[in-house]
């Protein structure tokens, strides 16, 4: 179906490969939303698909599809910018294409096994072939190894092209950051009987991905996108990028401590985790200011020169990137800070508060900018100079953003009730848990979450419809 996102105007093989990654990313994004809807319904009607397609399965596919579509879109974005930045056609892209097919086949098999086999016996074989049962990185060990191999091919494409071509500041950050991102995955690839040790290393992957290396990745994408979409000056964009790297890694690396409050690890993580994670919103404010400032500045320069119209060359992409600037700050920054201090976290840890933060931060920090990059890819694929937002683009971004915001607020209310009733008052036992789950404040919030999930899904349909049609329409307008 997504074959209609044509790549006719692309002559560069790397960028064609980028578009291949984008297509799979969009399909997996859809799978993530469908699984989310099933899980949301199960909160309201626990009998729904009981012992056929249980919550654990829906939820596992929900979060795995999330991680994988984002990685696909990230790889796609990297291939898209590789030749632009290095001014080199790309080294070993044919092998990269083989890697794409291997990865996609592996992802398909893993998902089918998740859906149809679901659980296995308590043996090593299950860990190797069915699932590892560790949130976010459930992929069985054989797939882990496959992922590492494919990522190495991808990294070699990027690194060898970088060495052979021009070495811009943006690509320097990209190459260094991708190495850390790929290397960290290995920290999640072993089995231990010690649950504290297990979670200690598990957070090295999860936290150092989403609160350090992925954020820096977003910084490089935003830098590249600002140059391409509004003609921002490279010197300024790269200076900001280095400042962002400084602040993101300066706060994010030791911010890892906020996951080490209650898993058996020593008390000193309270102070370290609280201090550094409290600093994590700072670079996100900087990124927000940077995007809006550069936009205003470029528009001002254009107006000063007496040029007509706006400087934005791709309306929907820019809209998503501005949403990213704000969503990253709001979802990761504010919603993260809500419960990052240990005095608060002792009550909020493992409640719907975490789910609220998870929804808005993954959306605000990552989904938004990656969708923006997909729009930019389409503009390139059709070879159009200017791509304006259509009604469908606007419906897509509005309904998805409104839906995710609504889900976040609903889950925050549910989490607040859970914190007060289950944790503070009743003491976190089984009865405390279910007493809190049954109160109207909680069940109403879960209903609103499901409704807002549907709103998000309708927005997604508009988004896909737009992605399939906007390029062709823009091309026709241009030629007319």
């Amino acid at each position: 179906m997504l074959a209609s996102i044509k790549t006719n105007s692309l002559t560069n093989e790397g960028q064609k490969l980028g578009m291949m990654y984008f297509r799979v990313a969009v399909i997996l994004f859809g799978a993530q939303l469908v699984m989310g809807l099933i899980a949301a319904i199960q909160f309201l009607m626990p009998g729904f698909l009981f012992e056929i397609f249980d919550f654990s399965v829906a939820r596992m596919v929900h979060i795995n599809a999330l991680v994988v579509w984002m990685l696909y879109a990230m790889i796609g974005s990297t291939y898209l910018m590789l030749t632009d930045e290095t001014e080199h056609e790309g080294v070993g892209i044919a092998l990269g294409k083989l890697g794409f097919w291997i990865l996609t086949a592996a992802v398909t098999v893993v998902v089918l096994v998740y859906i149809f086999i679901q659980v296995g016996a308590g043996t090593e074989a299950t860990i190797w072939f069915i699932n590892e049962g560790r949130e976010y990185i459930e992929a069985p060990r054989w797939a882990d190894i496959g992922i590492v191999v494919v990522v190495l091919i991808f990294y070699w494409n990027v690194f060898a092209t970088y060495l052979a071509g021009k070495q811009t500041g943006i690509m320097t950050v990209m190459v260094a950051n991708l190495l850390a991102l790929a290397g960290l995955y290995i920290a999640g690839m072993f089995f231990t009987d010690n649950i504290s040790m297990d979670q200690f290393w598990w957070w090295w992957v999860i936290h150092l991905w989403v609160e350090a290396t992925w954020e820096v990745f977003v910084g490089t994408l935003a830098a590249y996108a600002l140059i391409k979409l509004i003609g921002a000056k490279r010197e300024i964009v790269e200076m900001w990028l280095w400042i962002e790297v400084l602040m993101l890694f300066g706060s994010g690396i030791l911010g890892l401590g906020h996951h080490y409050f209650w898993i058996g690890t020593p008390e000193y993580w309270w102070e370290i985790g609280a201090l550094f994670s409290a600093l994590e919103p700072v670079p996100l404010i900087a990124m927000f200011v940077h995007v809006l400032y550069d936009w205003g500045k470029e528009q001002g320069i254009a107006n000063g020169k007496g040029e007509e119209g706006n400087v934005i060359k791709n309306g929907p992409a820019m809209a998503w990137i501005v949403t990213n600037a704000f969503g990253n700050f709001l979802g990761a920054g504010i919603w993260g800070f809500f419960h990052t201090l240990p005095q608060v976290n002792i009550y909020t840890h493992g409640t719907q508060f975490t789910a609220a933060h998870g929804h808005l931060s993954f959306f605000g920090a990552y989904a938004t900018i990656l969708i923006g990059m997909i729009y930019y890819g389409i503009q390139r694929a059709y070879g159009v100079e200017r791509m304006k937002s259509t009604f469908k683009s606007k419906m897509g971004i509005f309904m998805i953003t409104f839906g995710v915001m609504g889900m976040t607020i609903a889950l925050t209310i549910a989490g607040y009730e859970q914190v007060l009733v289950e944790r503070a008052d009743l003491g976190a036992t089984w009865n405390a848990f279910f007493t809190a789950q049954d109160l109207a404040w909680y069940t109403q919030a879960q209903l609103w979450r499901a409704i807002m999930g549907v709103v998000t899904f309708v927005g997604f349909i508009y988004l896909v419809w737009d992605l399939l049609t906007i390029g062709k329409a823009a091309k026709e307008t241009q030629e007319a």
Partner: protein
Amino acid sequence: MAKENVSVWTSIPFWRRSAAWVTGFATILLIWLTFDTLGQISMGTDDDLQTKTRKRVPAPTVINYHIDYKYDRKRGSEVPVVGNKEPFFGKEWSVDEAAELLHLGKLTSQAKNCMNCHTLLGNGAYYAPDLTKAWLDPNWEAMGYFGKPTKEEGIAYFLQHPSENSIHTRRMPNLGITEEEAKGLVAFLKHMSSIDTNGFPRNFSKATDKSNVGGTYAR
């Protein structure tokens, strides 16, 4: 750039160097702290248990001891208390047997995907209760151990027949857990309840005490 920079604050090399130094420093500090933490969260030995040496994560043979979770005035939170010996599934487990049972339990907890409904040490999904101190939950006793003589046998029975014994409309599905796997899981839960989690979950012992004296939420 042709022109020389007027100020260090707008100099790309300055920010690049600063970014490299800050990242390097944070990484080194993290690695150093990691070494310290790994030492503190490695499992203790059976000797530690016999000599009553407190470990954050005790040896698997902790399943041979009574475990409690009590308020500690000095630390200002609840801490696990390893008490006297008590039989587990009717016997005392040797070092090797206990390690093997815990291994089976941990493997099973992953194979059955517990973490995508429950939270373990507070991490996972939020559809079902936290399992950190599940071994100590007053509800097992309130439910009469499902007619079994001991708590461990009651929990093992529940894990094999969850959907018909659930206390809530949101039931646990039958995951095909065998008798051996259920024993392993109970050992895993008992071991987890002995881990020093800096007082998480808070107020748990208050609820337990209330339940034991027939308080409000003791059903």
